[in-house]
């Protein structure tokens, strides 16, 4: 049995993918039909009056009262009652929204210009949000820089994330699928690029995490480590395929021979193995305001203390890899010794 109103709703409402959706949509539709009825009534009456009482030869208006306390009370009290009902329905839904379930899994969310980082209970960090169906989650959210906002339309859930305080929200995904996560508080140039995927898995993601499917830098290829760190920290502002983003692209960065800066100075490099180049990259990550690339504003935050020297080394390896503008996943290193060798090679000069 298909509810015709329900099937109509698919044209103006996203899928219902969380426990809030049905309740919120009920109120949405209720207000919609209340509005349609009252609006149509108003417009019909207005147009009808305008037609039959229009000024025309031979038309003589009949006298009519200029006030009526009864009518005024009617249209004061009538709408008031409806409004009170709407308020309570809204408040009810809000209460559900604000009362987290007891068995909620906690995921830490860090928003930064212009990307997201999700830290799961076992310490794994990803840039897309992985959830398991029917498992309530509580997001503990902080911002690295300016105000962001976490919004997944299908979940009917939204929460601003302000720097300097901790925000918390919860929901229970109820529908398997892939959704979009939007930033809905204007946060700067790359605001509209701060869109990531939310994947609701059929099998419990939690189980996968228990099996310790977390990224271990010491067991992965340094370039793969670098790619992962790029997605978490750099990808919001820097492309590696040469496309324009907030900051300069990484394409051709490793083969750079000369870099001009906003203050008129410049640096020359003799290849990406040279100390000058590696020092420059390392400094740009830790103290970005020291050298601003010509043509770009001084807007990059410092990652001092957020990335370890090893991690900066992985990023440097990644930069060399994507110099041509494309990234290919390195084959998994075969032996432990290769991994160790890779990790040593990756450590950046200080």
């Amino acid at each position, binding site marked *: 049995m298909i509810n015709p109103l329900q099937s109509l709703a698919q044209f103006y409402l996203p899928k219902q993918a969380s426990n809030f959706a049905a309740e919120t949509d009920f109120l949405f539709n209720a207000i919609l039909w209340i509005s349609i009825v009252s609006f149509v009534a108003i417009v019909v009456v207005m147009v009808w009056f305008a037609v039959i009482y229009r000024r025309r030869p031979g038309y003589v208006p009949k006298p009519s009262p200029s006030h009526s306390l009864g009518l005024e009370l009617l249209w004061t009290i009538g709408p008031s009652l409806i409004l009170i009902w709407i308020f309570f329905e809204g408040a009810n839904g809000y209460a559900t929204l604000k009362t987290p379930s007891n068995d909620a899994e906690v995921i830490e969310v860090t928003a930064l210009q212009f990307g997201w980082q999700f830290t799961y209970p076992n310490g794994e960090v990803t840039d897309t949000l992985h959830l398991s169906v029917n498992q309530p989650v509580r997001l503990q959210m902080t911002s*690295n820089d300016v105000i962001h906002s976490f919004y997944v339309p299908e979940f009917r859930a939204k929460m601003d994330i302000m*720097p*300097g305080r901790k925000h918390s929200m919860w929901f229970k995904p109820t529908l398997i699928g892939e959704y979009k996560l939007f930033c809905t508080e204007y946060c700067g140039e790359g605001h509209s690029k701060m869109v990531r995927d939310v994947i609701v898995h059929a099998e419990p993601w939690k189980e996968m995490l228990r099996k310790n499917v977390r990224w271990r830098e010491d067991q992965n290829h340094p370039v793969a480590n670098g790619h992962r760190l790029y997605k978490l920290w750099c990808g919001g502002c820097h492309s590696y395929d040469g496309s324009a983003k907030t900051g300069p692209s990484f394409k051709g960065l490793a083969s750079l021979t000369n870099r001009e800066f906003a203050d008129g100075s410049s640096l020359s490099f003799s290849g990406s193995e040279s100390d000058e180049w590696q020092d420059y990259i390392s400094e740009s990550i830790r103290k970005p305001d020291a050298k601003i690339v010509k043509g770009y504003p001084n807007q990059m935050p*410092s990652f*001092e*203390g957020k990335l370890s020297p090893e991690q900066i080394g992985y990023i440097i390896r990644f930069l060399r890899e994507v110099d041509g503008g494309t990234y290919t996943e390195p084959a998994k290193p075969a032996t432990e010794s290769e991994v160790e060798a890779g990790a040593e090679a990756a450590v950046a000069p200080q």
Partner: protein
Amino acid sequence: MATTNVVRDEYSELVDLEHSHDHEHGQFIAHHFHSAEQQFDSGKLGIWLFLVTEVLFFGGLFVAYIIYRYNRPDVFIDAHHHLDTLLGGLNTIVLLFSSLTMAWGVRAAQLGDNRTTAISVLATMVCAALFLGVKAVEYSHKWDLGLLPGNLFSYDPLAKHDHALISNYLVMLCVPFGVLLLGFLLGAILNLNTGKKLIGQFYGGMAITMLGYFAGVGVGVLWMATMTPKHDSHDDHHAAVVVAADAVRPVVFSADDAAPKVETAVVDGAAAAEAPAGSTAPLDKSLGVFFSIYYCMTGLHAVHIIAGIAALAWIFYRSLAAQWRPDYFGPVDFVGLYWHLVDLIWIYLFPLMYLIR
């Protein structure tokens, strides 16, 4: 659509009424008002509405003050060591006295006694300038110590504070008033000698006002001089307090949290960048927020005092020109109301800033 039933004779009556009452308008009644009282009532309501905007303008700062005092009571209690209650109290009394003279001036204007009005308004201006002089000493002393707003805050409780009694900042703050004093003196002498009595008296009065500023500076410096030994020991005592507080940072939000963590870098980023690792006692910049609010509130108040002096000067000139009459004293009353509001705001600022214990 309708026939006219106008009584045509009436038109001639309608026409002749234009300008019929213009001759009744006195010198001070604008053309669009019917009477002195209507004009006075309009002005009075206007100035009250202006005061309403002033209250809400300052209101924003009071809200900021109360929110931060509520959020960080310890910072605010810390802060009172740096404010001199006696100078603040002196300034309070000076402002209250200026309110008295202002009210006296309004009364005299209402009675048509222009001479008393001029003297009262002059006294009010001298008090206002004196207030600014004391304030200049307070400000410059704090700037010497590095008690600056927000991120500029660089007060180091461990450093020795042997600064000159008359600091460079104070000299800078005195320069404009010195220039004005000389200008007014010159103007007064020239005009009185050439027989332009009115403007000469006005310049003379303004010169006396500027002297009030230097009187305030003098009082402030003398007080600072007598206080210096005690003040320094006070600072030393306070240094211990600050260092102790630093040990348990971030004390502001959680007393039970012992060591400052890397994650607080967002807050301490600026401080950490300036203080090299391993140096003792990083600056507690949270006190800077108190001084942000302190300078915003007292600074905005000082701007209002300066604007008040300008308005009072206008009243002073018109009093010398004997323009007030029992049916025309509005401007004195309106400037008076403004002046009392400035006083009112200080009445609240004084305990909020200086009397926190």
